[in-house]
């Protein structure tokens, strides 16, 4: 029997909640027998997306909300994170890996998401990110 577990929630814009939210998803993947490598990548990708939404999108505004949708199947996890900010131009972000940018303290979150997840797309002018990671579970 194939699995498809969907979850949808809206949380307040509090970065203290970030770890708690990601832990729920991470623990589900671990229980399914997803490899440590994949779990690590999803863990970082999910938390970076939440952090971007709360701090950059919603500008740490306590009244704003972050909407999260997750879907877990037998061979992938899909995560949507949406903030209430104005979005950003994904094509206009400086590459954090070149020249002086290496010494900058910001700009690595979006880059990590892009490299750790298998599919990443931005909608609503950048205020919604949809990402997916594929895996195979142990028999």
């Amino acid at each position, binding site marked *: 029997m194939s699995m498809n577990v969907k979850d949808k929630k809206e949380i307040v814009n509090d*970065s*203290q909640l*970030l*770890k708690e939210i990601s832990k729920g998803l991470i623990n589900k993947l671990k229980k399914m027998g997803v490899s*440590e*490598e994949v779990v*690590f990548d999803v*863990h*970082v990708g999910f*938390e*970076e997306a939440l*952090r971007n939404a709360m701090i950059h999108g919603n500008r740490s505004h306590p009244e704003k909300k972050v909407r999260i949708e997750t879907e877990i199947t037998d061979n992938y996890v899909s995560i949507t994170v949406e903030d209430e900010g104005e979005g950003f131009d994904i094509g206009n972000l400086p590459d*954090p*890996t*070149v020249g002086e940018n*290496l*010494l*900058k*303290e*910001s700009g*690595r*979150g979006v*880059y*990590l998401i892009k*490299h*750790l997840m298998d599919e990443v797309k931005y909608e609503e002018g950048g205020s919604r990110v949809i990402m997916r990671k594929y895996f195979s579970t142990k028999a």
Partner: protein
Amino acid sequence: MHINMEEKNGVSVCYVQGDIDINSSPEVKKYFEQVTREKKDKIVINFKDVNYVDSSGLATLVDVLKKMRAYGGVLKLSNLSEKVMGLFEITKLNKLFVIVQEEADALSSF
């Protein structure tokens, strides 16, 4: 998150226990602000008990490196797990930091 420092042959070895992430980064930053204020010039951060680092953790480490470079100090990172090392490789921070396999390699190469 906990940091413990040991002096070994003139090198300050910092053992970090726990994640270096959005929650612990302010504490890590504060700890190393004190260390760099004392201008310790040879530091090894041992990652053997660090399982998770995020972009705020990476930013904190870049900040430590910059502060040390300003007074001519040398920072080395050792004992990174494969997964944490992967983050340094993706972000090319492995080119910026001196990263060695074992703490002993770091201590013998100052």
